[in-house]
């Protein structure tokens, strides 16, 4: 990753995620991104960070740090998100299959959309566990 354009550190929690997204959006506007592109970035970042809040730090009493780094690259925006919570099961990201919605109302899924959205909207999604740190990196193709 090139020299980061943005680095945010915050404590795990859904309100922390919201505040981080606000900061990122403030920067993206200055990069000249279109509203539609900003929406895509916000959605992918929200899903990635919500997963950390929900799965890496599953209990309120074991919240921990999340750091987000963004760098402008030739082919879009490169992101790196790190946390010190639980490792990803199996040491890799979920495949992110599309959720089957051709089912009866009672069986309609209420979750499982997050990784699908990340894998669908981001490129080069890569996860690594380095010592006690989870590191998720990906790229979003926008013109910067």
């Amino acid at each position, binding site marked *: 990753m090139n020299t980061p354009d943005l680095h945010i550190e915050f404590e795990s929690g859904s309100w922390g995620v919201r505040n981080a997204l606000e900061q990122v959006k403030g920067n993206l506007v200055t990069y000249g991104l279109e509203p539609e592109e900003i929406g895509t970035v916000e959605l992918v970042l*929200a*899903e990635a960070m919500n997963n950390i809040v929900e799965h890496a730090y599953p209990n309120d009493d074991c919240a921990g740090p999340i750091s987000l780094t963004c760098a402008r690259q030739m082919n879009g925006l490169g992101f790196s998100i790190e946390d010190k919570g639980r490792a990803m099961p199996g040491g890799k990201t979920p495949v992110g299959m599309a959720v089957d919605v051709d089912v009866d109302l*009672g069986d309609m899924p209420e979750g499982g959309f997050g990784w699908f959205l990340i894998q669908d909207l981001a490129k080069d999604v890569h996860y690594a566990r380095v010592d006690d740190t989870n590191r998720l990196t990906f790229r979003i193709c926008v013109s910067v």
Partner: protein
Amino acid sequence: MELTSHQSGALHVVTVKSSRIDAAVAIEFKDAMRVQSDNDFAEIVLDLSLVEFIDSSGLGAIVASMKSIGPDRTLILAGLTPNVEKVFRLTRMDSVFSVFPSLERALEAHAA
């Protein structure tokens, strides 16, 4: 997470007064929807025109609301802004709900 409601003909219109339905407010949204749908209306319109952002938790909360109002009643979505529409389209949830670009269009389509 504020929801308001009014009656339009045979429809019960619930308006989301927040700009986000995300992980931070998904449970609150579900609870508020339960209160707003505790009535006998067969069709409930959820006006999302003020909502600028929804994540998968928010999407799940809307799906949960649809399931909880029961199989004999319908939850209609109206006024999806571009970011909200994209989440419904990508997850194909736009094929599960009746979706209208605006509240006016939803009311026209369901006028008695």
